[in-house]
């Protein structure tokens, strides 16, 4: 203890070294917390301009987040489609109804099948007859030309285009089957469109990230200019560049975090506004689809990328403008 004190006194004259030593980890962390808090306080004191900057950042960040979420929902819609993915399996005309029933029972026991509904020729004919104009045509027929149809619903995990296609191949191999038709084309088209949209969202996200970077950078640049005198004074009384840089970097991080928060709000509100109409539309399609709002994971990504962009933006501004300010 005593020796430590003597050592400390001895090192008074080796300033730069002793100063660095005196800066213990705890003090360092405390300083950082203090600077972070000070920066937040500064944003609060200029709340009007802070709010405007934050709103701009929030809007910019909400676009990619919202579009990503929308795509995610569409993806879910095409991936699950509530058991609507079905195969229409047409049996050969010579297959009797009893044989068809046995076949339906066999297929029902396959592990990848959720359900099989058999439509007899008589039922199919009746259904046709309900369509206006068909009744007369059908009445002219001597016998029922329709085959037995099995409506097959793939089970969970087998509804995606790839598995459904495989299932279709399997049906084609059965001797009783004339035609297995996959009601899948719209799903494949949707998937292709989603792929394209995803690429578009990536491009837009990159552009908006650049916008966030520029907005934060410009805001910090203005702040550096406003505090020019203060920077000069602190440099004269021995502040290192990193000491001067720190509050600006924290401001940048705060802008990013607050912007991400605003973006989250915007997305939540927009999806809340969309939820009603979407539910109505889904109801019309007899679907139980409901919009999924921002999951926690995405919120964390939003906050993370927001603060990272804020930090990077302010770093660029600080690097460019701080070194230009020297006492004179």
């Amino acid at each position, binding site marked *: 203890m005593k020796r430590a004190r003597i050592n400390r006194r001895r090192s008074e004259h080796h*300033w*730069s070294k002793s*100063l660095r030593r*005196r*800066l*213990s980890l705890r*003090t*360092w962390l*405390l*300083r950082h917390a203090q600077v972070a808090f000070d920066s937040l306080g500064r944003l609060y004191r200029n709340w009007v301009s802070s709010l405007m900057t934050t709103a701009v950042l929030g809007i910019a960040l909400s676009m990619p987040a919202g579009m990503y979420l929308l795509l995610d929902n569409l993806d879910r819609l095409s991936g699950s489609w509530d058991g609507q993915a079905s195969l229409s399996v047409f049996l050969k005309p010579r297959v009797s109804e009893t044989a068809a029933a046995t076949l339906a029972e066999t297929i029902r026991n396959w592990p990848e099948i959720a359900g099989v509904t058999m439509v007899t020729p008589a039922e199919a004919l009746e259904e046709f007859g309900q369509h206006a104009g068909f009744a007369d045509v059908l009445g002219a027929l001597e016998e029922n030309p329709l085959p037995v149809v099995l409506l097959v619903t793939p089970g969970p995990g087998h509804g995606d285009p790839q598995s459904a296609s495989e299932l279709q191949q399997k049906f084609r191999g059965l001797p009783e089957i004339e035609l297995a038709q996959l009601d899948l084309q719209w799903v494949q088209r949707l998937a292709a469109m989603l792929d394209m949209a995803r690429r578009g969202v990536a491009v837009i996200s990159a552009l908006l990230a650049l916008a966030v970077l520029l907005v934060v950078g410009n805001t910090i640049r203005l702040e550096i200019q406003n505090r020019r*005198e*203060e920077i*000069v*004074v*602190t*440099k*004269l*009384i*021995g*502040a*290192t*560049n990193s*000491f001067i840089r720190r509050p600006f970097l924290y401001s940048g991080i705060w802008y990013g975090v607050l912007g991400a928060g605003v973006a989250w709000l915007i997305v939540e509100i927009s999806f809340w506004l969309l939820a009603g109409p979407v539910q109505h539309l889904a109801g019309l399609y007899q679907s139980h689809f409901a919009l999924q709002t921002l999951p926690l994971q995405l919120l964390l990504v939003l906050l993370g990328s927001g603060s990272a962009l804020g930090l990077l933006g302010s770093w660029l501004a600080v690097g460019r403008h701080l070194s230009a300010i*020297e*006492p*004179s």
Partner: protein
Amino acid sequence: MIRFDNVSKRYPGGFEALSNISLQLERGALAFLTGHSGAGKSTLLKLIAMVERATRGQIFVDGQNVSRISRRRIPYIRRKIGFIFQNHNLLFDRTVFDNVALPLIIAGYRHQEVGRRARAALDKVGLLDKERLYPITLSGGEQQRVGIARAVVNKPLLLLADEPTGNLDPELSREIMNLFALFNQVGVTVLIASHDVTLIQQLDYPVITLDHGRLLHSGRASA
């Protein structure tokens, strides 16, 4: 404490602010730097503060050759020096206490230590009761005393003052000078740039006189 060896400073454009200055200020000394305006007083202080670099010659502060120092090391050398400016250079968006505490925070002192030392410095200049006020509410003399408290708060080896009494009346000026004398008595080296000849003549300290960038005289004013 301070040594100039054949130092010249020529600004871009050809104006030579200092020509071939050699001088020495012993540790623990108090001296005045005087001369007409434009004689090079400010330039000389800026060279010591590493704000400007000498064109020729060498400058030593506390044994260190500051004319050769790297930019990264400058902040650490500056912490050995307390600066006092004519216009105080206080930060007006912070309280008196926060202004005085700034050098300690920059140097990374612990929280309790910052409070203790800042209050001690404020006490020395007689402003302890005003620590919570903002500088704008203080008089010119009080603002200058805050500036002095900030300069001495981390016990610098050297105090540099650039026209510290420039905006003050004679009464306040003497008060400020007494403060400098007080710090000098506890071992701080003090260099005060001033053109207030009447005030300098009242006090018996060495005077360095500059004229058009040349050293005119160095020694006691009375001698």
